[in-house]
């Protein structure tokens, strides 16, 4: 049984690695992304296959280390590597289209949105973590390989969702500030669980015989893991500050005044918005809408008014007409928007947004459409 699982795990992992790096080759990835992915992948491999897994049947502390590696080392590293984008690009074009068709189904998208909602990931991960430590469940996992595999999978997947929501979901609903808070909350409940294990008067799991072993396991969950959380939290915090500065810099006072005037004057009628967008860009919003469908923007973005454009790979584009920034650092002017649409890498070489060879006319039209979104 164990052997079967080892083989399955190895196969799945090799498949994922191949897919990922095919994807990396066919797109332009930031340097650190494949590295992070590879590191995360190696961590999983080390945790699930080999001596650590064998030892984990005997030593609780090793088992705990294995879980912590999966949840707070491998999961964030993998998430930093953006497996979904590169995985997608690693597929053959027809397979990609199929996958996209499935993932773009409203039901799938809705579910995905629901389970990656900020509070949801926090709670789901917490529940999974605590529920699996109930003696009955944990013992079950120890005695049955299938349950064990499910346990590891759930740990990893919920952790990955958690880290995904706080690292990659940033331009959506989450700011880094919330991310810091979530890291803090997770660090707290994890360390409370660790502390409970450490201070317990009796053994929780009959399969592990030594009291010291359980205490060590609790400590591993509490202190070294807590340290990783602190480092992650501080990094996110620094990012938060940086982001706030970037945002504020753009609103030099001319823009601020302009925008305020803008807000005050802009009225509710779509007709006016269209006229305005035309005036700003010289493009035709209605044509832009069809161009958006043609170029497949909806595969990555959520764009109001465009059928099927409900994806969450890239940031949603609702209200883009009133945003201050594009791509994190570019002031939102018509010229910049068009430039960004047509040649993203010329602005941010590390951007995951591909160059789709948009024509000048189409770029203008797309920008015009986007500027009607307020």
């Amino acid at each position, binding site marked *: 049984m164990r052997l079967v699982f080892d083989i399955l795990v190895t196969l799945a992992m090799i498949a994922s690695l191949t897919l990922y790096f095919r994807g990396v080759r066919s797109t332009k990835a930031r340097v650190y992304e494949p590295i992070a992915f590879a590191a995360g992948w190696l961590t999983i491999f080390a945790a699930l296959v080999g001596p650590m897994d064998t030892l984990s049947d005997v030593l609780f502390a090793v088992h705990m280390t294995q879980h912590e590696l999966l949840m707070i080392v491998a999961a964030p590293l993998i998430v930093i590597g953006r497996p979904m984008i590169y995985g997608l690009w690693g597929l053959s074009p027809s397979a990609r289209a199929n996958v996209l068709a499935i993932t773009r189904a409203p039901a799938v998208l809705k579910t995905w949105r629901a389970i990656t909602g900020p509070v949801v990931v926090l*709670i789901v991960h917490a*529940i999974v973590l605590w529920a699996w430590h*109930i*003696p009955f469940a944990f013992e079950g996992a120890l005695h049955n390989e299938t349950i064990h595999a499910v346990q590891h999978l759930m740990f990893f997947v919920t952790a990955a969702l958690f880290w995904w929501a706080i690292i990659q979901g940033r331009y959506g609903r989450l700011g880094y500030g919330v991310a810091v808070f979530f890291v803090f909350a997770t660090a*707290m*409940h994890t360390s*409370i669980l660790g*502390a*409970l294990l450490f*201070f*317990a*008067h*009796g053994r929780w799991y009959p399969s592990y015989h030594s009291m010291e072993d359980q205490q060590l396991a609790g400590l591993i969950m509490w202190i070294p893991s807590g340290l990783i959380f602190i480092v992650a939290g501080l990094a996110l915090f620094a990012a938060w500050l940086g982001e706030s500065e970037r945002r504020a810099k753009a609103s030099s*006072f001319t823009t*601020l*005044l302009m925008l*305020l005037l803008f*807000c*005050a004057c802009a009225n509710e009628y779509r007709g006016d918005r269209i006229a305005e967008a035309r005036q700003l860009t010289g493009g035709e919003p209605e044509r832009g809408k069809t161009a958006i469908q043609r170029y497949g923007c909806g595969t990555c973005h959520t764009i109001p008014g465009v059928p099927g454009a409900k994806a969450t790979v890239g940031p949603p584009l609702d209200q883009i007409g009133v945003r201050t920034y594009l791509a994190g650092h570019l002031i939102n002017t018509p010229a910049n928007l068009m430039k960004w649409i047509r040649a993203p890498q010329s602005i941010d070489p590390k951007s995951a947004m591909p160059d789709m060879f948009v024509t000048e006319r189409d770029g203008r039209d797309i920008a015009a459409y986007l500027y009607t979104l307020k």
Partner: protein
Amino acid sequence: MSETAPVGRRFVDVSELPMFAFGPRDPIWWGLWLLLAIESTMFVLLASSYFYLRGNESTWPPPGVHQAPLWLTALTVVALLLSVIPTWWAFRAAIQFRLRPIQIGFLLGTLASAAACVTRAYELATIGYNWNSHAYGSIVWAIYFMHTFHLTSGTVENAVMTVLLFKGPVEKKLMPDIRLSCIYWWFVVVSWIPFWIVIMFDKS
């Protein structure tokens, strides 16, 4: 009738800005979530104390403990879960400024939450141990007390909101508060589920 600009300086005119906002733009939204953070911390600490005390006993719960009947406690949970649906209508309708669904949502939500209060009262009356029986009794009663406190205040809040909504006139400014009431109520609902599972099914 608003402030006019001082002579000879540049100014930012905020006179046209709206007088309320939804979600994290609204300070009260932060107030509510901070309150929930405080209350969640309390719940987490109670749960931690529960598990800490659990470690002291070889049999848990201690012998002779009779819980309230499962069907009764399940009834409370069902009432709580049902109340989510109408409050969800209200939650959605609030941002669309549609009064009627909000009114109906809150009316039904209040009824469901009141039902939960009633079953909770029966639950408390049928618990077969006292808070002074043993540490188990103490911690479980503490959890019950904390949650019942929130249940009651949430129900009262729902009822008050319903009255205000039906009595009118309703200001647009109230809509963010409607959504916050819903969030608070869902917190009351969601926070009970893990405790319910632990109290009813945690046996060794």
